[in-house]
């Protein structure tokens, strides 16, 4: 996808591979993310650590990230360095394996284990993402297991796994390339054809199994986790419509009504009026297959027990179901979301990433231009239908964090 804007002499290059933790085989949790690290270790014509240096030396920023459904790689460079950025992406898409060594794998394995320690194990509530996934998705489901992976599984990853994963998933037909910013369309097309053209297509991606799910959990589920925290926290999750579906927009608006910023229901009620929460938000994971999850995230004030906090959250949800959202709440949510959409479009890398996202997850990059109007089209009726259908007790998964040695709430 090409999106020109010649205001600033910079260009963003963005590549989405349609592979993520969901594609990992049993015993290899965390592999897609470890693999992402390996992508920065060089390729046939790029030395170890040279990738980062080349982009930074060119005056650019770069990174990558792994999620359940996709892995993305992105860089923003001065516009006269477009060819370098494309060449680097093509070299590692076409010829990664010659540069892969046991030593690099062992080092990145250690780096990732430290990343796990830093972002999960050594952080209060750090295990929340993996625990939420565990609770909200059945064991056989591709979204069930941890994105960053377990230490044990990381230890098992081998060079053979790297080779297999690369050949299966890192192919041009499983990737979407977006370019946004200051570039010439014809030149860009020529460069893309030159660098990526010779890379052979893959042989097809194994389909995700057991991906479909019923619209609701069916019965409430709970998990209580002791952690090194001073304040209890409640995550209440609901199975919700997949990203991009009609109903998704109603869910997204509901999350904003419930927990976006300080004018939201949860903030006004729990933080401001009742003062039982230190903070409160709501959000969706934005998964495009199977089922999404809508999550409420509330942390207690010091005097409030986990039990009381859970009651408070449940009360707010029931209140919303009983009263329904009002038109002015829906309007507030929509205008906040639309402003965010517009301000986000200021950066080339954000535009490029969203183009890749709409192309990969929903098969249509043009959808980027429709988002503001899709939100504008969300009616109070649709919001209340979502609230009624999906926020009931038959669709709640509650994850509670309690301070250690307090026992179960």
């Amino acid at each position: 996808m090409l999106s020109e804007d010649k205001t600033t002499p910079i260009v963003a290059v963005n590549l989405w591979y349609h592979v993520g933790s969901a594609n990992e085989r049993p015993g290899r949790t965390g592999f897609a993310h470890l693999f992402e690290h390996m992508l920065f270790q060089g390729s046939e014509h790029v030395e170890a650590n040279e990738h980062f240096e080349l982009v930074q030396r060119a005056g650019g920023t770069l990174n990558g990230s792994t999620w359940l459904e996709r892995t993305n790689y992105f860089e923003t460079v001065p516009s006269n360095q477009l060819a370098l950025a494309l060449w680097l992406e093509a070299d590692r898409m076409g010829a990664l394996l010659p540069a892969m060594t046991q030593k690099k794998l062992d080092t990145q394995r250690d780096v990732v284990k430290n990343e796990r320690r830093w972002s999960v194990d050594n952080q209060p509530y750090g295990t929340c993402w993996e625990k939420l996934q565990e609770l909200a998705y059945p064991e056989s489901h591709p979204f069930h297991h941890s994105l960053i992976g377990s230490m044990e599984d990381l230890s098992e990853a081998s060079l053979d796994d790297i080779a297999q994963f690369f050949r299966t998933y890192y192919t041009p037909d499983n990737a979407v390339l977006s370019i946004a910013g200051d570039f010439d369309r014809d030149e860009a097309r020529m460069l893309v054809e030159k660098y990526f053209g010779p890379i052979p297509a893959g042989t097809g991606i194994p389909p995700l199994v057991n991906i479909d799910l019923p619209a609701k959990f069916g019965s409430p589920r709970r998990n209580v986790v002791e952690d090194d925290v001073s304040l209890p926290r409640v995550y209440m999750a609901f199975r919700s419509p997949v990203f991009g579906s009609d109903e998704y927009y109603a869910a997204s608006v509901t999350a904003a009504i419930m927990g976006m910023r300080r004018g939201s229901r949860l903030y006004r009620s729990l933080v401001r009026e009742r003062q039982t929460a230190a903070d409160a938000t709501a959000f969706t994971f934005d998964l495009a297959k199977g089922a999404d999850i809508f999550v409420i995230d509330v942390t207690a004030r010091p005097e409030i027990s986990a039990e009381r906090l859970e009651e408070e959250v449940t009360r707010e949800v029931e209140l919303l179901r009983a009263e329904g959202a009002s038109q002015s709440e829906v309007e507030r949510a929509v205008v906040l979301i639309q402003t965010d959409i517009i301000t986000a479009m200021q950066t080339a890398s954000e535009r490029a990433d969203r183009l890749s996202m709409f192309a990969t997850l929903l098969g249509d990059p043009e959808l980027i231009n429709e988002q503001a109007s899709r939100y504008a089209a969300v009616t109070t009726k649709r919001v209340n239908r979502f609230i009624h259908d999906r926020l009931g007790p038959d669709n709640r998964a509650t994850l509670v964090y309690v301070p250690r040695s307090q026992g179960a709430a």
Partner: protein
Amino acid sequence: MTRPAAGPSRDYHFPKFEIRSLSNGLRLIVAPVHKLPVVTVLAVVDATAVSEPAGKEGVAELTAKALREGTTEIDGAHLTLEFEKLGTSLEAGADWDSTVASMTVIRDKIEPAFALFATVLTSPAFRDDDIERLRAERLAERLQVIDEPRGLADEAFSRFVYSDSSRFAEPMSGSTRSVGGITRDDVAAFYDNHYSPAGTTLIMVGDLTADDAEQIVRDALASWSGNGSMAVVAADAAARSSRAVQIVSKPEAAQSELRLGHVGVPRTHPDYFAIVVMNAVLGGLFSSRINLNLREAHGYTYGASSYYDWRRQAGPFVVSTAVQSEVTAEAIAEVLKEIDRMRSEEIGEDELTLATNYLEGVFPIRYETTAAIASALANMVIFELPETYYDTYRSNIGAVTTSDVLTAAKSHVQPESLQIVVVGNPSVLEGPITALDAGPLTLRDPADA
């Protein structure tokens, strides 16, 4: 396969801006940017954490947050909704050298949004209930600090580096003790003493002209009056000049959070550009010496970096990383080695150009949004940088030589003054760190930090 060369480069200029003032002393800086129909409004107020009365550390931050809790006309809940109906929210926070209040709004809502913004600046109510609640929220945050190893390490480090009587030894938002003692009257007094048109610069960036902006500001703020005080406390005295090491005990820690450093230099130091380039090579870039050593060569960490925390008075120089507990002593030794190497010989020309090319090339990428441009202009105000600062930034960076970098390392990184703080498991750490003999070692409890 040869890698592609760069094409001809295109010029980039930091957005042009105009500076105007009102007769009440209020300054206005406007940078028209017509890319998208977006405007960022940012007020820089001379209400700083280093101008707080003794014993009331944290009142600057509390006052900034209290601005959002309502005016004499309208209470906090309604004020919040009024902003949000316009698609925006007011952010406000204090820092060492300023208070900043800002919002980003779609162009067609700027007039009503600014009217609200102006009343927040001129007529905050500071209701007892709201102050009470904000204080309780702040105290809840303090409770959580001991659970969170990164923040805990940062705080313990500041406390260790700066002398007890220095403002920089305390967290910017205050300690549990100082915040617990802040009253509504303290907030009102701080506001009266520090919020005034003469002490405020309004920055507006986005889809409007300087004349539009001036009109909007005049309509709302021409009648604002008052003067603020400029009193500032001494903030940056070091606790000691010799090396010392501290372990903050967290037996359950899954990893060590490590900080090494000492008192740095004020933002306006003449060696600023040489220090920035030196730091990029030492620990500022991904390909820096410290990161490549600790992460890529040894696999000790997910990331290691160094930085100078720029403030009007001397903020700290810090090397910061989280490492596997068992290799903490090794990691410290490697950092010390890199510091020594940096100070003993000039960096290579390649290393220099990596840093300078990066800093020059990335410059336009930093200023894509109205918020980023407004923030840059705020820094210009806060540190009293010349109006040409952003026009000359890249050439100033480009002028730094390998010899300048060596001089900067020798002058501004002092191995014998390094303070080392580790938050982690003492039973794993104590032996190896003692064996390092890096300085006299003390142990402390996180609750004391």
